[in-house]
């Protein structure tokens, strides 16, 4: 695994270790969600919507200098918080690193046990979508 990704994941895991209580973790994620940059409504199209999420989730990407930048939004503040966590790890990484990363760090934050199945399916769908984008860019790069 790419060291940068690993480091950021560890940082996040360590952040969550500061909280003893689920309530604190919850409020932290909500706070992250609130701070997530607002996505332009014109980008909230059906084609940008991620299937398999109970809540509405839209996602789009930019690819600059061989690095991927995600932009995403949701009608759920909590989900936006999860998006923020994923972006911390993935924004600015190389496609191949994202493709290769296990991205299971959220399990280690202790959040997963509190996330209902429908929502955790949504989380999986987001990660899958991010990896698909990365794979797309990777293949494009390789064929060039």
């Amino acid at each position, binding site marked *: 695994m790419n060291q940068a990704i690993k480091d950021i994941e560890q940082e996040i895991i360590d952040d969550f270790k500061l909280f003893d209580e*689920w309530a604190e973790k*919850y*409020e932290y994620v*909500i706070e992250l969600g609130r701070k997530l940059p607002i996505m332009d409504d014109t980008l909230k199209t059906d084609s940008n919507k991620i299937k398999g999420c109970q*809540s509405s989730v839209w996602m789009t990407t930019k690819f600059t200098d061989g690095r991927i930048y995600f932009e995403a939004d949701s*009608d*759920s*503040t909590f989900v936006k918080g999860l998006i923020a966590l994923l972006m911390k790890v993935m924004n600015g990484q190389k496609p191949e690193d994202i493709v290769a990363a296990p991205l299971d760090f959220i399990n280690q934050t202790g959040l997963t046990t509190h996330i*209902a199945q429908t929502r955790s399916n949504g989380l999986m769908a987001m990660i899958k979508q991010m990896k698909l984008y990365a794979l797309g860019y990777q293949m494009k790069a390789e064929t060039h």
Partner: protein
Amino acid sequence: MTATDFDVESIRKDFPILSQKVYGKPLIYFDNAATSQKPQAVIDSLVKYYSEYNANIHRGVHYLSQKASIAYDDVRTKVQRFVNAETDKEIVFVRGTTEGINLVASSYGRKNIAAGDEVLISAMEHHSNIVPWQLLCEEKGAILKIIPMNDKGEIIFEEFEKLLNARTKFISIVYISNSLGTINPVKKIIAKAHEYGIPVLVDAAQAVAHLQVDVQDLDCDFMAFSSHKMLGPTGTGVLYGKMKLLEDMPPYQGGGDMIRSVSFEKTTYNDVPFKFEAGTPNVADVIAFGAAIDYLSNLNHATIESYEKELLNYVTEQLSEIKELKIIGTAKDKAGVVSFILEGINAMDAGMYLDTLGIAVRTGQHCTEPAMDFFKIPGTIRASFLFYNTKDEIDALVEGVKKAIKLLK
């Protein structure tokens, strides 16, 4: 005795889970419409069964089997009395409401519903009372018609009457809606349906825990309910059917216990209700379900009903004062459930926040997606009550909702 004399604290002691802590906070359980908690007597009944007389029933010659058979058969009589059926032969043990409805759709439905026939259900049905009829109608080329409701979540009786015609062959309707709390006028609906000779199934999944149910007074043809929503264990439930209808129905599943005699050339079936109970029954859970019925029967039903009414009124008043909150389902006749949305706030986010406070509510569509579509909402936050809930718990809920709004708005 008025509802305020009702000693809820002493009742709560009968339910061990109610003294659980969640995240170090006392559990506040408002997810009773999903499943109820169990009194110690029900748990003890399971322990006693498995520690003292577990055995397969009905065909055994030995002591354990006799004891288990008697205990099992006894529960059929308890259920009969509980819903006031004419005979205990009208009580079929099934896995739960869902299986009860599927049994009727599959056995009665396949025999009696043909292409072009119409089946009526209401706009507020649980998926378990929609999908079996969709499957049947698709197979048979029959048509599923929907009895509409108004903005309060009440069935529009005149519209229901207009739907009745010679092609209407079956009606299946919920007694108390699990997502809106509406108590439907099932007695009136049944009487009207019977004018046309149409049989009616009542989905009483929510009703049995809240109302005194009387199948003869309602004159329903079938009724289905689940043990787990009325203090009993998961994995069992009841299909009530009028004797004549049950006798005319073909078997549902084949296997042990439902037969009289089997040969490769000719198999004959057992009498009702055994014809519908193939395979080893869920002996332990049925017996423990009996303990739940005993518990419920020992309560004063009138007191319980008025206490629950008081809780519902109280929570409705309190929540109505929150301006960002809108109650979904405001029927005149309601029981057990308050469903609401918070303006601009995702329901699951709010539910998760309440969870951090140890308050258990449910969020989403509550298996009534078409009803949510009707109100043009993705889902609600639902708090559902039983007689062991308290006004203090409601205060905590209201406080929690207010804080959720502050945090998530």
